[in-house]
């Protein structure tokens, strides 16, 4: 678990400097210098979309700042929510007078800080709406679905809300489709090996050489169960079953599939997993549209993968496949 870094306290700052140096479409802003916004000027009449979250999950969250995606992102320390100031700065950066959608994962710190930030910007007459990503089926039972954490599936909500905002829809409408995307998305992750916080000398969890953990959280929080390492086909079948128990799919349904790597799992293995997920869905008569395979939401060098499924209707499919471009995802 070696790291190619400098002083741990500069980890986030230096990472952001590298990110914007590589991607001129992104700019760091705000007093805190912990906000990334689009370099382009805000589109007049467009609802702004802001996200935020802890560092250590690239491309999530800030890699999805772009046209047809989110407009600004508040960036926290590794695995910590963004500080209130950054949330305020991000909202200000994204606002064009039509209101701002706050679209982020359902984590305590993030929620509290965006809540406080939205109270603060309300004093400047900025209207906000909030939609929380809560796709991780492992993080709470169906009865407590609203307490679930947001994981990789959040990027579907970015894409869909972003496409709606590009149509100059109202804040209410943008929030509606974002919520619809969240409600139609489920994810489940599997972890094989830990990561290490830059400030720490120890991995963030321990797992035996021959074990995997189903449903582990993206920060290494314990999952649903541990078992001995299974084959890719068995693993993905279990993951899919956990999702289908919560999001039933019937023949003729259309879905998008995101087979996401947590960081250290090679693309080869992600494709092997995707292949099986795709076959199993085809066996049920479910059609896969616009699938995504890659490292889209990571936990630094954690090994493992997550499977997300977005159940489509005509509206969601049109927004998912509408043009959009950010550094790590491009459509059209």
């Amino acid at each position, binding site marked *: 678990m070696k790291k190619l870094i400098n002083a741990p306290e500069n980890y986030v700052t230096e990472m952001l400097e590298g990110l914007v140096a590589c991607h001129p479409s992104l700019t760091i802003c705000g007093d*805190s210098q912990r906000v990334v916004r689009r370099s382009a000027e805000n589109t007049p009449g467009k609802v702004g979309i802001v996200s935020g979250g802890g560092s250590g999950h690239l491309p999530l969250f800030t890699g999805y700042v772009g046209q047809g995606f989110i407009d600004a992102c508040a960036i926290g320390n590794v695995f910590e929510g963004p500080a209130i100031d950054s949330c305020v700065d991000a909202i200000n950066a994204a606002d064009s007078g039509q209101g701002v959608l706050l679209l982020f994962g359902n984590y305590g710190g993030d929620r509290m800080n965006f809540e406080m930030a939205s109270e603060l910007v309300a004093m400047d007459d900025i209207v906000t709406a909030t939609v929380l990503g809560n796709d991780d089926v492992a993080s709470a039972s169906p009865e407590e679905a609203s307490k679930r954490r947001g994981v990789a599936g959040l990027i579907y909500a970015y894409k869909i809300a972003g496409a709606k905002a590009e149509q100059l829809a109202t804040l209410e409408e943008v929030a509606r489709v974002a919520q619809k995307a969240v409600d139609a998305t489920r994810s489940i992750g599997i972890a094989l090996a830990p990561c290490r916080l830059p400030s720490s000398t120890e991995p963030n969890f321990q797992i035996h050489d021959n074990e995997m953990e189903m449903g582990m959280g993206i920060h290494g929080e314990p999952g649903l169960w541990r078992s001995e390492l299974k084959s890719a086909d068995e693993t993905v079948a279990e993951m899919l079953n956990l999702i289908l128990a919560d999001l039933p799919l019937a023949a003729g349904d259309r879905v998008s599939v995101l087979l996401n790597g947590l960081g250290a799992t090679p693309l080869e293995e992600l494709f092997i997993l995707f292949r099986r997920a795709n076959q199993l869905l085809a066996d049920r008569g479910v059609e896969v549209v616009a699938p995504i395979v890659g490292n889209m939401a990571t936990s630094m060098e954690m090994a493992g993968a997550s499977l997300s499924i977005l159940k489509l209707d005509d509206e969601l499919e049109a927004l998912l496949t509408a043009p959009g471009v950010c550094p790590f995802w491009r459509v059209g």
Partner: protein
Amino acid sequence: MSLTAADLSLAVDHLASKLEELEPVLNSADSRLGDGDTGTMLARMGRGLADVDLESTDDLGAAFMLLTKATLASTGSSLGTLIGTAFMTFAKTTKGKSEIEWSEVFAMVDDAVVAMSARGKSAVGDKTILDSLNAIARSTESATDRDEFVTQARSGAQTALDELRDQPCQIGRARMYKEQSIGMDDPGMLAIALILK
């Protein structure tokens, strides 16, 4: 006996040095059920607080507001934001005052618990920092000076820790592992107990 800006300054110094020392212990407590960052986050917050210039004002409210800002700038974690919320409550109560009686402090802690509970959507009994603060408020009702307050707070925090250890966590991801969380200390509660040791 009353609490002044000087007491606050002393308390902050103690807090910062304790948090530096407790970093590994608290990280490892958090890593059992959470993401293992409580210690690092609190140590960073402690450094932020230590950097605040409390000499510049006699007004306790202004001093607490400086501490609030330092806390909220240093982190965006749940715990940090809740601590910032507590400081903000203290700032409101003490606004314009250069001292308050030690006998009034427990009521301030009660107010903080109410504000934190609203912010955190959590309640006393969920096995969080709220239980520690609530227990501190109860145990310090009769305190009239700093030494009494600290002694009573210490025992309150320890009692809460001991009493809730065998309860399941009700908040955050740890909620999912009710069984597993039984017998383990909540890292936030542990932090408060150890700071007061």
